[in-house]
């Protein structure tokens, strides 16, 4: 009884923590003084980017099964669902910004923009596109699962890193301190999960038989 209630407390604390890390930066950005002078496509495009960034923090936690209810196949199912949501946020981000200023958005997409962060945003965008293709054509590609997984992880690392650099260099609706915290959280989550799933757990699985 005592241990199950402690488990419940731990689970709800973990979920509350995740909710706080993802929701607080978005909430603070909603009060940005820059919003009143922006039109609706710009605001939607900007917030799609902020939401997408915060989802990048949650995304690696799901297949790792760190959160209560995300253990095993359930976590991978949520991971796939959230992956689709991230694709939608990227589409809304680019589409909204295109409607707000076609000139600036096309410059960014063609890598001729004067803004240093555009190249990271475009890198992350193509990383997300490549991931979507990788996921949707998994059977057709005929890759061994271990190889497919490694490509997926590599792309994910690129997407998270590029998105973080992109976000940090931008002066926009996000409040700087909450932005930094969200970015560090996304990097930490990605790094810890990659290390856990690809190094620690396989290493333990190798060691176990010999130790018994």
């Amino acid at each position, binding site marked *: 009884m005592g241990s199950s209630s402690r488990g419940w407390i731990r689970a709800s604390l973990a979920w509350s923590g995740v909710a706080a890390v993802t929701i607080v930066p978005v909430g603070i950005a909603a009060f940005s*003084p*820059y919003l*009143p*002078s*922006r*039109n609706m496509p*710009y605001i939607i495009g900007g917030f799609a980017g902020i939401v997408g960034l915060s989802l990048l923090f949650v995304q690696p936690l799901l297949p790792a099964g760190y959160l209560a209810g995300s253990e095993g196949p359930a976590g991978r199912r949520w991971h796939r669902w959230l992956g689709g949501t991230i694709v939608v946020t990227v589409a809304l981000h680019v589409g909204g*910004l295109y409607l*707000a*200023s076609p*000139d*600036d958005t096309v*410059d*960014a997409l063609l890598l*001729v*923009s*004067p*803004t240093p*962060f555009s190249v990271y945003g475009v890198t992350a965008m193509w990383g997300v596109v490549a991931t979507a293709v990788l996921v949707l054509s998994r059977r057709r590609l005929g890759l061994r699962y271990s190889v497919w997984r490694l490509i997926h992880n590599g792309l994910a690392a690129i997407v998270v890193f590029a998105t973080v650099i992109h976000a940090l*260099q*931008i*002066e*926009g609706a996000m409040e700087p301190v909450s932005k930094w915290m969200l970015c560090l959280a996304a990097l930490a989550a990605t790094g810890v999960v990659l290390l856990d799933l690809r190094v620690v757990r396989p290493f333990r699985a190798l060691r176990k038989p010999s130790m018994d």
Partner: protein
Amino acid sequence: MTDAPLSRRSLLVATAGVAGTALLSRPLGLVAPVMAAAGLAPTATMRGGANNYRPNAPMVDRLGSGFFVRGKVLRAGDGAPLRGVRIQIWAATVLGGEPDPVNHGSVLTRADGSFELEMAQIVPNFGQPHAHLAYDDGAFQTVFLRPVMPSARDTSVSADFVLAPT
């Protein structure tokens, strides 16, 4: 500080910006090597400078208050100040976005080649607080500038033109 005239630093900053975009600008042929050797080199168009340009912004006394866009217009080669040159200015401000007509206006240069437009506070747009300035009237080669403010809290930004005759 905001009243400081055209400083050497802003010229250097502008030069650095031009150097940074040299890769792109050179094919546009805006830098004339002969002119550069002869004297003051013409200003090259900055990357993204023409974004959200609406030709023939109306002549205005001001576009709001509290923020100043300043600069100087000189002739390439001998560096003579150019008087009565129309400079078109636009930016995203607290009044609206970059394409918004309320944020577009033109001013003429004074006898010393300087110009100034008071407008609403510029806010970051597409990730950077910046203004757009254009010379696009035919007597000289067209130049689009896109100076970035070091801080979004700045209440002025300056950009200078060195124009080459067409």
